């Protein structure tokens, strides 16, 4: 029993932190821009396939390729903002459709140039050994991913609580029109929010690539985790996302180790739906980023 408890505690932390890292950017975009960035899933793909392209096809070193792929992700995100979000700012339905279209286009392009058979792999293993925790042993790369997620969260919190741009973003998330009245530069702040929101998913995706399959359709799997966390947390609220990520992590660890691993996803979804019925706005009701 002690072994099971160790495993549940350890994996609640591991899964929860990883899910938080995956959802961080989506929460930020939703919180600041009030936009459901349905092209978010493309970021995961661009991060890994961009790295592969620069590394394997162009011939840069791995580190340079990672940096370049993050630049590529930022450029892509900015382009999505300029071309889709600004264009359809007043037409939300069309905007959502256009964002999904962008995601699918990216997916299809990658499937065309890099079908699964190409065998894309990014060697980003930082620690490949097992890490003992009580009676459990945790894969080192998961532990690294979890701590990087927490580090990213800390950086974001510092940004929101200590920097001018962070204050502006929180002001916008609290009252868009009031902040407009006091002279906030919307375009610049939105673009900045979009770009900084695109970095965590790119980093997390690169870190989990040694432990998850890479194929052109992986974006949906990861994106759905981001939506799940964001929806349960209360769209666009970081505190809510933190709670949600660890609740889902706990459910999955508990069900996976004590009940039946086959039911991990199902039970997590049932719990999310129950929470939403009871609290339709998610765990954190406030419509602010923090």
């Amino acid at each position: 029993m002690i072994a099971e408890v160790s495993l549940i505690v350890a994996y609640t932390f591991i899964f929860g932190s990883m899910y938080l890292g995956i959802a961080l950017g989506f929460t930020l975009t939703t919180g600041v821009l009030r936009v459901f960035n349905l092209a978010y899933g493309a970021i995961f793909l661009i991060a890994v396939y961009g790295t592969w392209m620069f590394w394997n096809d162009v011939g840069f070193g791995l580190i340079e390729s990672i940096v370049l792929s993050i630049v590529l992700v930022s450029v892509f995100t900015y382009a999505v903002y300029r071309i889709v979000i600004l264009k359809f700012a007043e037409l939300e339905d069309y905007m959502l459709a256009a964002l999904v279209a962008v995601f699918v286009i990216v997916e299809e392009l990658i499937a065309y140039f890099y079908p699964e058979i190409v065998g894309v792999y990014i060697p980003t293993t930082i620690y490949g050994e097992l890490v003992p925790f009580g009676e459990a042993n945790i894969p080192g790369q998961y532990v690294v991913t979890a701590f990087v997620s927490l580090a990213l969260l800390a950086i974001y919190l510092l940004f929101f609580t200590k920097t001018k741009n962070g204050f502006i973003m929180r002001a916008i998330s609290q009252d868009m029109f009031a902040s407009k009245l006091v002279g906030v530069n919307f375009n610049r702040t939105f673009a900045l929010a979009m770009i900084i929101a695109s970095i965590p998913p790119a980093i997390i995706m690169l870190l989990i690539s040694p432990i998850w399959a890479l194929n052109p359709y992986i974006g949906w799997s990861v994106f759905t985790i981001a939506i799940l966390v964001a929806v349960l947390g209360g769209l666009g609220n970081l505190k809510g996302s933190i709670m949600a990520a660890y609740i889902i992590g706990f459910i999955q660890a508990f069900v996976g180790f004590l009940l039946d691993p086959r039911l991990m996803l199902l039970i997590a979804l049932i719990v999310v739906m129950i929470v939403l019925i009871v609290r339709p706005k998610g765990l954190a009701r406030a419509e602010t980023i923090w």
Partner: protein
Amino acid sequence: MKMGKMMIGLGLILAVVLLGCTETPKPAPTPVPTPIPTTPVEKTPVITTPVQTTPIPTTPVEKTPGVVTTPPRLTGEIKVCALYDTRIPAFKANVEALKLAIEEINAQGGIMGKKLELIHQDTQRKVDIAITAYRSAVIEKGCKVVFVEGVSEEVMALLEEGAKIYHSNPHIMISSQAGMESTLKVIEDYEKYKFFFRSLPSDPEMNYKVTKVFFDIAKDVIGAKKVALLLEDAAWTKCAREGCTYNTKFGTVGSKAMKDWVKEEYGLEVVYISNLAVGEKNFLPILETAAARGAEFIFVLSSWYTDTTTLTKQWASSSARNIPIAFFGGTAQWMTAWNLTGGASLGTIVMTYDYEAIPLANPNTAGVIKKLHERGISLDTSTHYAYSELMRVKEAMERAGNPEDIDAVIKAMEELEFKNHTIHRAEYMFFGYKNPNFHSYTGGPTMIAQFQCNGKPVYIVPSDVLAKGGYVEESQKVQPDAYKSPAELRKICK
């Protein structure tokens, strides 16, 4: 936006997406095995053996070798249609295999002078699109042979469609669809569904006879005593998960649940069983539990629906990484699995027919693998099936004497002892037994390899298993003694 409503909406969408189509386009259920014995139909099931094929072996067909005598030269083309979603690597490979077969047949003068023409149509793996494509292929384009991707719901819908149009537009349909229901239709209503051939063993055969070889390896090569079974939660694995029995007018076929026959026949203790959800990404709870329960061998019964790449990567980084793990299907069958996993597949045990140096007797096998590799294609067993089945159709048409006479071609398909299959012996893919394997393959031992240093596969099937299965000369070339534990391989392959 109205966040509350939006969130409930998104929650609903999520539920659908996560439960339904999280991990996309994984291809067909086709797990794909490979057999090979000498005895056509199993008549006497072994005592402990779950499978009780009560055959009605029938007329062991006339095995007259020289069938055709200088056929008349015909003109025109024979159209072969391929209904596949080529976004799926396995289906793209099937189309390429058909192209290769057609090129080779045409280079030899076609079928009785008629050239073959391949028409590919994308189904997007959607039933409605597949039906439209199929009708168009048969009625408008005049296809005489239609290859269909192995997606069960599609095949079942197309069978009904085909039955409606067969008499006005005779044709043959071939699919490596996994579920037994299509074969049952042919058995129960032959006149209506005789145009359908399933290039895959029946479910009990697939879940028992084809998988047995993995436990021969577990027991005799690895020396394991405790095993963990990870079984894909899909219709085609029902026989392995729960056991199954099918009663047909040609006899009864069935198998016990895998956990039972593994214990009864091999004396292996099953310490852990878990069903794998399609699209699952978190395998660590399963792997950690298998390790905690003391498993000494992990067997994964999977098709393309299970993400074996992620499973392999997580196995290699988990507490279970020193436990030998064996994969039945999925990307693990490809040589590319080595690259896909960044070498994490070191030590994994896989059923693979994607290696040019595979020890098989058919002189054509290595050539086909090489030619398809040159086209950037990795091969799973269904790729071999596509290539070989078209070659079989050619022989059947020649035997029938008229490629347009589809009734005669079907009869010839049933009677033909086709010897040029790239991975199977004739007895295992003989369509004509009037037993529950009618119009489908029969199961038997397969070629299993272990990925060793630099991703080189070493075939480790015990020689006696191969010999019993009809592999005679080839059994000399396997190296069960070359098996190494994953831990040892990690040390020596650095």
